[in-house]
């Protein structure tokens, strides 16, 4: 049984308009998304901004209410959890946000940010909170002198370390990383990625790594799920997908990563804009940007199939 298993997850948002703010229609941000996550594994959700990857992460954490689907942690349905079960779930599944400046309350010190979760979940006695926070700070590469500072006194990389420390304090089994390095300087990105790798090696935590940068993803992910306009279009082992991408969209993403000594091959560069999810294209949502699109792609949406261990949703593979 998988640690975390997502089946047929769909999330939509109401679009309000007019004088009375009535719901005019719904944007389908995530549609029929399924995947499994094992302990000690990193699954990466990749795609352009607006493809629904962050929404997926938030729905799994129950920060958003999904329309349909099921989320199972150790086989237990998360969507119906209440009270003590929900509290326990919140301890086991944690999140690190993209913008570390916005994710920290400006009026709480670093110590308070990390300590609050420990106290609320009763993980340590009141007397030993400070010692425990010191240990966690040590784990993420922060020192004692940082404890009583407010977020504005830290650099971006340090703030993200506090964000990671805050999540680790609860000793979660699943960590959702919502673009954890894309707001950081490139030099700092590598440090934070290494830190995350160390922590996973030490604790066996499972990561759901949400990202848009294939260059980052190919270094950290064990498996890869590529999302386009709310759906997964390709999924498989990260190395295989990067080495031989199948779906035309994955091929574009892989080709868009700049590399030394190679010229980007004409025709495979990402072209066009992501269509509005308010008016998704008919058939295969990718067809307006796909170099291989044919009549069938405009009419019917490919359901997707598993071919030699990899999921793919395209008519012409």
């Amino acid at each position, binding site marked *: 049984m998988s640690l975390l298993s997502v089946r047929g997850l769909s999330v939509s948002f109401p679009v*309000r308009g007019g004088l009375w*703010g009535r719901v005019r229609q719904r944007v389908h941000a995530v549609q029929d998304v399924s995947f499994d996550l094992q302990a000690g594994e990193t699954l990466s959700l990749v795609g352009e901004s607006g493809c629904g990857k962050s929404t997926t992460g*938030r729905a799994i*954490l129950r*920060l958003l209410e999904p329309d349909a689907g099921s989320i199972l942690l150790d086989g237990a349905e998360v969507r119906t959890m209440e009270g003590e079960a*929900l*509290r326990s779930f*919140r*301890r086991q599944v*944690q*999140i690190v*946000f*993209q*913008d570390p400046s*916005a*994710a*920290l*309350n*400006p*009026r*709480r*010190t670093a110590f308070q940010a990390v300590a*609050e*979760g420990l106290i*609320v*979940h009763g993980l340590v006695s009141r007397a030993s909170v400070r010692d425990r926070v010191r240990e966690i700070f040590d784990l993420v590469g922060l020192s004692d002198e940082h404890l009583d500072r*407010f977020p*504005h006194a830290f650099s971006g990389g340090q703030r993200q370390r506090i*964000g990671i420390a*805050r999540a680790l304090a*609860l000793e979660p089994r699943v960590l959702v990383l919502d673009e954890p390095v894309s707001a950081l300087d490139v030099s700092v990105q590598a440090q934070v990625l290494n830190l995350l790798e160390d922590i996973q090696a030490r604790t066996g935590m499972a990561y759901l790594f949400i990202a848009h940068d294939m260059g980052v993803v190919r270094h950290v992910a064990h498996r890869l799920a590529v999302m386009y306009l709310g759906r997964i279009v390709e999924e498989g082992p990260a190395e295989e997908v990067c080495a031989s991408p199948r779906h035309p969209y994955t091929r574009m993403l892989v080709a868009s990563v700049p590399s030394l000594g190679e010229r980007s091959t004409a025709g495979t560069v990402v072209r066009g804009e992501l269509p509005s999810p308010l008016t998704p294209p008919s058939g295969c949502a990718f067809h307006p940007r796909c170099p291989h699109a044919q009549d069938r792609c405009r009419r019917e949406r490919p359901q997707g199939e598993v071919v030699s261990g990899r999921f793919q949703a395209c008519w012409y593979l």
Partner: protein
Amino acid sequence: MIPMLLGVSIIAFGLLSLSPGDPLAAQRGNPQVPDELIRRIERQYGFDKPVPEQYLRWLGRVVQGDLGYSFKFKRPVADVIAERMAATLLLALFSTLLTWFLAVPLGVWSALRRSEWPDQVVSVLAFVGMSLPSFFLALLLLYGASVLPELPLIGRIPIGGLVSPGFDQLGPVARVLDVLKHLLLPGVVLAIGGLAGLQRVARGSTLETLSQPYILAARARGLSDRRVLWGHAFRNAANPLITLLGFEFSALLSGAAFTEIITSWPGMGLVALEAVRSKDMFLVMATVLMGSLLLLIGNLLADILHAWNDPRVKLS
């Protein structure tokens, strides 16, 4: 602060000097006041000198703590102001407290129930409150209070003034109650005017704060809704409210004039109107100075509250 007060006083003094009228008109028209006396008063206060010199003389006296003499009230300006200021401060304090204790919880509630019926009802009421001119609301409430039968406990709601006739004969507790009863009507009028705006700001600020990632992060850590709202969101959402408080408090002191006039509340607004109408030079100048001073004090108050609300600032 000092340059601003100087600027305000120069403009006010200049405008007053340009305006038609004569502070001593009443005395001149009185056949029992000899011309000799009027000329002596003119010399004493420098009304026969050019305007810039008049201003400098006035400024010199003010710096020494002498606000001058009110020809209208026939008393020193300082006495008139002190008495009226107390009444206005009392009214401002009462209506500010009333506004805050109603508007902030309503704003937060509205934000939590966004787009549901409680939010919509409160929003409609807020817009009605904002659109109602205070003088009209005051008249409505005055009428209401006058046709209301005697209520248990309170009796009749007074429709004007600061105290009832026979105030001097009352005991200390009864005196406080008497003033509070008189405060009710002007206080409610002012509170409704400020309530609507503050409720909107409280709602908007709470909504904005609740959508911040650190609020999501707090929820993701399994904190209770109450802890998220009061422990994380509220203090951050209160910032714009505190800034507003500084302005509102001073605006109430000077801008309560309409309400004061209609409910005959003997405060600064009423006295300022009377002073301008009789061109009571020194009294007008004193009310103008008071208004500017209070704006500055209101902002200082807001700054102190900001510091108190923000653990990052240490007052030493």
